[in-house]
């Protein structure tokens, strides 16, 4: 099983084709569209989470490439806004990797980005909304 957030670029010539339907029907790919738009030059851009069995996923990627659709990885990054953090500690029992962790006995909270697996559980668990997700596409 592969699950990946990607950015798809559709050239103007293919933008009207039903790609998401084909992905689902032919390759059993589940697509969760996060953002989609078409620019004035009729080029499409879609931020989407795709999941499927390994083999079908790879075949779907080949299909997209063959039609001229560019597939770029989407990198997510978790940003801890230290200024907004009130050091309440609520996130520290929610974060599965201790990326958000409490130094004891000082009881101060800090964030170690290397340990973060971008599971996003902290985003809504933080009462002060001091954690944000940033999406960086490799564009």
């Amino acid at each position, binding site marked *: 099983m592969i699950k990946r957030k990607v950015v798809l670029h559709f050239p103007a010539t293919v933008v009207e084709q039903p790609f998401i339907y084909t992905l689902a029907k032919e390759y059993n790919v589940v697509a969760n569209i996060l953002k989609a738009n078409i620019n004035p030059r009729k080029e499409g851009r879609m931020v989407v989470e795709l999941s499927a069995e390994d083999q079908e996923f790879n075949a779907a990627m080949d299909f997209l490439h063959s039609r001229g659709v560019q597939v770029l990885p989407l990198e997510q990054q978790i940003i801890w806004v230290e200024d907004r953090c009130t050091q309440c*500690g609520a996130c520290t029992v*929610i974060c599965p990797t201790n990326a958000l962790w409490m130094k004891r006995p000082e009881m101060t909270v800090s964030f170690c980005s290397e340990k973060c697996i971008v599971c996003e559980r902290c985003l809504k*668990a933080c*009462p002060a909304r001091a954690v944000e997700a940033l999406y960086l596409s490799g564009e």
Partner: protein
Amino acid sequence: MSQLRTIQEINEKIAKGQVVVATAEEVISLVEKQGVEKTARQVDVVTTGTFGPMCSSGAFLNLGHTTPRMRMSKVSLNGVSAYAGIAAVDVYIGATEIPETDPANSDFPGAFNYGGAHVIEDLVAGKQVFLQATSYGTDCYPRQKLEKYITLADVNEAYLFNPRNCYQNYNVAVNLSDRTIYTYMGILKPNLGNANYCSAGQLSPLLNDPLYRTIGVGTKIFLGGGIGYVAWQGTQHNPNVARTENGVPRGGAGTLALIGDLKQMTTKYLRGVSFLGYGVSMQVGVGIPIPILDEQMLRHTAVTDAEIKAQIVDYSEAYPQGTGGSLGEVSYAELKSGKIIVQGKEVPTAPLSSYPKAREIAELLKAWILKGDFALTEPVAPLPTVEFPVKFEDQAK
């Protein structure tokens, strides 16, 4: 017990720049080093602090008269309704109020990104807030509709009035069920996945004056970064609870109703917060100075996390059903270690109440007193309390 000093004498020392102040943390190490007697003679004031979610908070605003005049009967600020069932342009905006358009828990668990507490935070931050008001119109107040942006500076009076703050001790919340639950004590993972508590422990105001000997109606305090006062006993104030030998409640007990000028406050110590699946609340920073009138007060303020106990309560069943019952008692020292044992299982803990902020507030209040900017007050009326024979162990360590 012989009196060491009066509040008046302390204020004279503050005026002369001779006062000796220690935070509720510092006083613990002073007592460890030099004993109770010497510390009591040396220290005039102990400062406390707390910074945690306190739902029972809100602000009175006088929005000012318009031309023609208006008796506002329905008012909202940034879409959050404020209570207007008082005089013409007076309203009360409650911390937990959410906009009518918020899906709340119909999209479970609701995010509750914005509510009354955030409106108050935005006002304190100096941001513009959208005011909408309607009225049925009267001969003296003909205007029926108003929409405009306001800032805190445009508002005549603005004061925080919190009916229940500073809970003296609180439950430790756990979840015995097999599904995640979303509470005002935060997210509780199934099968004792975590234990959340909410008190500054040894720094917390009412845990340093457990029998309300010095904190009373009229006591001047640090509130949200400005100056405030104890207005009354808080709602649900209940001194008649089980206590340890030094008079410290073993669970929720006293509370305070607080009042203070919103225009002096800062978002550093007053913040809107969102509890997933529960709602909006406000984190309020409070600091209270405790005069060391005698040795007993010093012993009270020297209380340590190891001596303060709290009850572990199941929030999946016992709490919501009101059936009560404690799963056990733990100390704040254990809670702060990061894990406790419940029903034989090791459970990770999280505070909700910010200890670093509590410490910051106690230190800031200490600095204000040392600089001569903050004098102590004599309470004008006592809070309801209990006769309690306090026993202290010999602390001459």
